[in-house]
């Protein structure tokens, strides 16, 4: 019994890191542009395919194709921002949500047309899949993804706090006009913010390729959880996103251990609804934005 709980905790925490990583991209985009990006899951899916095809055709280990997927998605993200979202900055928020929904529909179905709905997976040879620590199995690819998620969040946090560009991004997120008056090119900040958000999704995608099936609709699984995590942590709050990810990961894993069928998924949404009702600014409310 205790082993089961511990095992679920470990699995949950590892998966929670991934959810956190997806959520960080969402929260960065929201923080700067106040847009909730429905297409984040689709961008993650593109990252997964980049790693998948690099592995199939070029034999590149998915971990080594991370820079490729991150950079490609940075430009795709910046392009989306430039061609579509930059024209939507002053639109009503539900229209912004709808336009990202449209982007999601286009990307997902384009992937469906190009690569068929097949579920694909990468099999890494000569790679230890599970470590056994005191009777508890630790999935190595998940562990790597978790560590990478934590390192990336810290790096992003430092980037936003310490560098000039990071400060410019934060300034834009706090007050767009103020930032503009101080000589910050806010349009450029938007490209960078959306590009970074897309890269984060792509990195998350590449990191999960070794242990998660790749398919055109895989993004849907993550985008809903991403929303939940982002709201849980407080929109625009980075540390909150990671903690929110861990909460969802752990509750889902515990739910999976004790609830029959796919009822574990209920946990996520019930937590979400309760948080929406009780603390719509997130668990660490007030600090957001």
């Amino acid at each position: 019994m205790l082993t089961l709980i511990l095992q679920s905790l470990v699995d949950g925490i590892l998966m929670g890191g991934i959810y956190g990583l997806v959520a960080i991209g969402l929260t960065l985009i929201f923080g700067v542009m106040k847009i909730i990006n429905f297409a984040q899951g689709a961008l993650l899916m593109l990252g997964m395919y980049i790693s998948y095809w690099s592995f199939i055709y070029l034999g590149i280990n998915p971990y080594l194709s991370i820079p490729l997927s991150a950079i490609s998605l940075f430009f795709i993200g910046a392009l989306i921002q430039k061609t579509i979202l930059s024209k939507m900055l002053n639109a009503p928020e539900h229209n912004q949500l709808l336009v990202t929904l449209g982007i999601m529909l286009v990307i997902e179905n384009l992937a469906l047309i190009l690569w068929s709905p097949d579920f694909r997976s990468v099999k890494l040879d000569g790679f230890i899949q599970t470590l056994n620590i005191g009777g508890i199995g630790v999935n190595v690819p998940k562990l790597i993804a978790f560590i990478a998620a934590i390192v990336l969040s810290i790096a992003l946090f430092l980037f936003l706090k310490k560098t000039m560009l990071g400060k410019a991004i934060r300034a834009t997120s706090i007050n767009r006009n103020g930032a503009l008056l101080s000589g910050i090119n806010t349009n450029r900040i938007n490209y960078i913010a959306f590009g970074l958000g897309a890269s984060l999704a792509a990195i998350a995608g590449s990191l999960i390729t070794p242990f998660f099936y790749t398919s055109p609709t895989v993004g849907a699984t993550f985008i809903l959880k991403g929303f939940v995590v982002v709201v849980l942590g407080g929109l625009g709050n980075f540390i909150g996103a990671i903690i929110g990810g861990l909460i969802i990961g752990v509750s889902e894993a515990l739910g999976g251990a004790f609830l029959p069928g796919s009822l574990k998924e209920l946990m996520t949404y019930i937590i979400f609804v309760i948080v929406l009702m009780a603390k719509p600014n997130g668990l660490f409310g007030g600090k957001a934005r």
Partner: protein
Amino acid sequence: MKKSPILITLALVVFAIFPLVVKDQYYMHIAILILYYALVSQAWNILSGYSGQFSFGHAAFFGTGAYTSSILFTKLGMSPWIGLIIGAVIAAVIGLFIGYLSFRFKLRGVFFSLGTLAFAEILRIIIQNFDVFNKTLGVLIPYKPDPLMFQFSSRTTYYYIILIFAIAVTALVYYISRSKLGYNLVAIRENEDAAQSLGVNTYKNKMIAIAISASLTAIGGTFYAQYMLFIEPATTFSNDVSINILLPAIIGGAGTVLGPIVGSLIIIPIGELTTTWFGNFVGVNLMAYGVILILVMLYLPEGIVGWFQNKFGKKKSAKKNKDSSISGGEEVGTLKN
């Protein structure tokens, strides 16, 4: 609308004689789909178009309608006509419950959207995990043509039924848009706090809107089940269903009486044509919807009818409209904080 009774009559006549002229079963099917999407999107329009509470989870009500009538029919042999009413009532109750939680706790804007999305997912997971609902297998409705059991041997009958439903709901929306309820809803959409301070009971009005919207969507769900004779969680409770419900209204113009019909007339044929032309590629129709959605949001953010009203409606009645800025379908985009 008042200006063009001839146009409306003409449209009604075209709809009424359509089956007499067109005998092709495939075109009949498309026509039924158009009317059916117009119906559910019109239902969505009442809550989201008029009061501005954008629901991304109308699948919750749609699925409730489809499942209620189908389960009662297959397990108890109850006529789906009665199931339709029971489904509508249950959906209204679920709508009121969602409304109570959302509006009491002041979920606004995208938070309401995400909340409704979550509620639809919760219902889908419940359906998928209990034997009464056949879990993920869905419900197969045995085909036994009998008008009392909402099953017909001819597509034409289905056509006329959905036509009557769609006209009735559109008439209801027209009536609401002219009623005190309609004005209250538009006031809530434009500025909720201002509406409240002027004495509009925003909570009560939103609750009425969500109850009506939910029950009408459920009626669409029952029709879908009886027409398709097969339902499963993926085709009744998923996000795709919610998206398909809101698309016609958004494209045609949310918060306008004719928006959902115009939107449905445009996107359903496009979806069907692309599926026919590129049948080998699953997803082409959804990709086309995505492109249309992006283009509409960029260039006609108030939808086709909304754009039309702004462009041509204002010129003629600019003086009349000046003092009443809450005449439906306009200025959705101006207020954002």
